């Protein structure tokens, strides 16, 4: 979907209903969704095409955006609305194309047999879907059609640049179309694109395809080297898995971006404990326990940091057992830089059976207490029972309970 959060906002505002047209992005008002409109240091989460024409970009500071476009309409995010719209759009896609797999809030894969009598013209089928989404939701989308999921993802990015918003790469044309693109068009590379450009001198995807697979594996490791080689040759064996969105978790994690850089260990420790409590609650609710606990910090300006893990002898869902491990990861890997984001994760999950007893603690009693706390919070809200440390200035729990994914609900 195009600028999904911003599109949901303009689509739900009757002031703009009559002026907006599906075939003209510029009939949208210059509107941005910002993390906290009250704070000029808030970040732009989404911007309409009209706002982007004025120089506004996602992740820009609100203050800077307002300097570029003083008449910008700024709204607070409404995550609950965006999730509900997303669910309904995905349902619409699934009704037209049953082989559908949601990828994110605003993206989905769908597949259909071609050539086939049911779908003689893939572009017409995609156009019908685009029209249906506009008719029901007044949200524009782009469609990339290709022989596999990765190529379709790359084609989708190109669809933003063409009138009509649909790009189709038939099998016999896909490689030629792919190889002429700049290597940054290869979705999923992230920082590896810089390495390919500056160490290997690649300019286009075609240049990457010319690199021998063993060179790629030597530089990027056997896994990523293989993947990059495959992608450059337009190959992706990823199957369509419609139920994978609802598949059981392989890990549980929570991340929070802090309102300022935290520089004191005690402050970071409070946030770690709050996130750990949430992870453990979700893990208990799912009836599993984890053996590997992980801590991730992102430093100031959201650059740099670390992600480290520790595997325990036994699986657990007990914050009291996991917290010392997280603190030891913090003490070992934190270099003292200002911390702007914290993430806590638990994986290597096993079914929760029995209680691992210790000689010096009452694990059964702690487990019973944890379940009672979970039940009280389920009924009365997350802030009905809090640790005292959450009341300290460093505590983020009370602020986070008003948000979804770190943004206002």
């Amino acid at each position, binding site marked *: 979907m195009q600028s999904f959060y911003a599109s949901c906002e303009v689509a739900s505002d009757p002031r703009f209903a009559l002026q907006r047209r599906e075939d003209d992005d510029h009939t949208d008002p210059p509107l941005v969704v910002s993390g906290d409109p009250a704070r000029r240091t808030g970040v732009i989460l989404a911007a309409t095409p009209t706002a982007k024409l004025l120089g506004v970009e996602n992740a820009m500071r609100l203050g800077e955006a307002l300097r570029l476009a003083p008449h910008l309409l700024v709204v607070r995010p409404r995550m609950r609305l965006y*999730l509900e719209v997303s*669910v*309904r759009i995905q349902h619409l896609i699934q009704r037209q194309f049953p082989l559908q797999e949601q990828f994110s809030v605003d993206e989905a*894969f769908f597949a259909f047999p071609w050539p086939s009598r049911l779908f003689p013209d893939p572009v017409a089928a995609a156009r019908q879907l685009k029209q249906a989404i506009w008719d029901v939701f007044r949200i524009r989308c782009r469609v990339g059609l290709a022989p596999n*999921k990765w190529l379709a993802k790359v084609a989708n990015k190109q669809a933003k640049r063409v009138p009509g918003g649909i790009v189709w790469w038939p099998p016999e044309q896909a490689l030629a179309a792919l190889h002429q693109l700049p290597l940054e068009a290869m979705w999923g590379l992230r920082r590896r694109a810089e390495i390919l450009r500056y160490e290997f001198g690649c300019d286009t995807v075609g240049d990457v395809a010319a690199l021998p697979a063993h060179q790629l594996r030597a530089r990027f490791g056997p896994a990523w080297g293989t*993947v990059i080689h495959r992608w450059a040759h337009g190959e992706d064996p990823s199957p369509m898995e419609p139920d994978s969105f609802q598949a059981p978790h392989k890990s549980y994690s929570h991340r929070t971006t802090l309102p300022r850089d935290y520089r004191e260990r005690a402050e970071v420790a409070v946030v770690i404990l709050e996130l750990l409590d949430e992870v453990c609650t*979700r893990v208990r609710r799912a009836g599993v326990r984890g053996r590997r606990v992980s801590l991730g910090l992102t430093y100031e300006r959201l650059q740099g940091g670390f992600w480290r893990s520790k595997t325990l002898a036994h699986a657990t869902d007990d914050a009291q057992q996991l917290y010392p491990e997280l603190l030891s990861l913090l003490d070992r890997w934190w270099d003292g830089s200002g911390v702007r984001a914290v993430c806590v994760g638990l994986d290597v999950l096993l079914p929760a059976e029995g209680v691992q007893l210790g000689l010096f603690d009452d694990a059964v009693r702690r487990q019973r207490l944890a379940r009672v706390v979970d039940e009280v919070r389920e009924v009365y809200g997350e802030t009905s029972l809090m640790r005292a440390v959450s009341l300290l200035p460093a505590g983020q729990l009370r602020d986070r309970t008003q948000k979804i994914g770190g943004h206002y609900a």
Partner: protein
Amino acid sequence: MRITEGNLFAGMRLVLPEHRAAVTRWQADVRRQPPPALAEDVWQEMAYTWAAAEAQQRSLRVRLYTPEGEEVWEGLPESRGGELWLRTAEGRRRLDRGRVTGMEAGAVSIARTREFPVP
């Protein structure tokens, strides 16, 4: 999951718990069926089936509506004081007539189904 095998996109996907909950809620809502409206002659046929099974002490399979899908009870029919009961393996259960969508006696089913609506 190794990134060289399987669905790479499933491995790279991050799903907010609230998003997953919204999808689950939506799917449950979509699966909910409205209560069926049965025609008069279907009721009459079911009444006959019930009476015959009760007289002959034969087991009946009764289909009942729930918003989440059909429920099936099986047992010996009993009529008491205008109420319908089934003596099932779980004990005697009172039938809510408003939820009954069909009955089967033996190998023959005369229940109304959605595929063959009563005209």
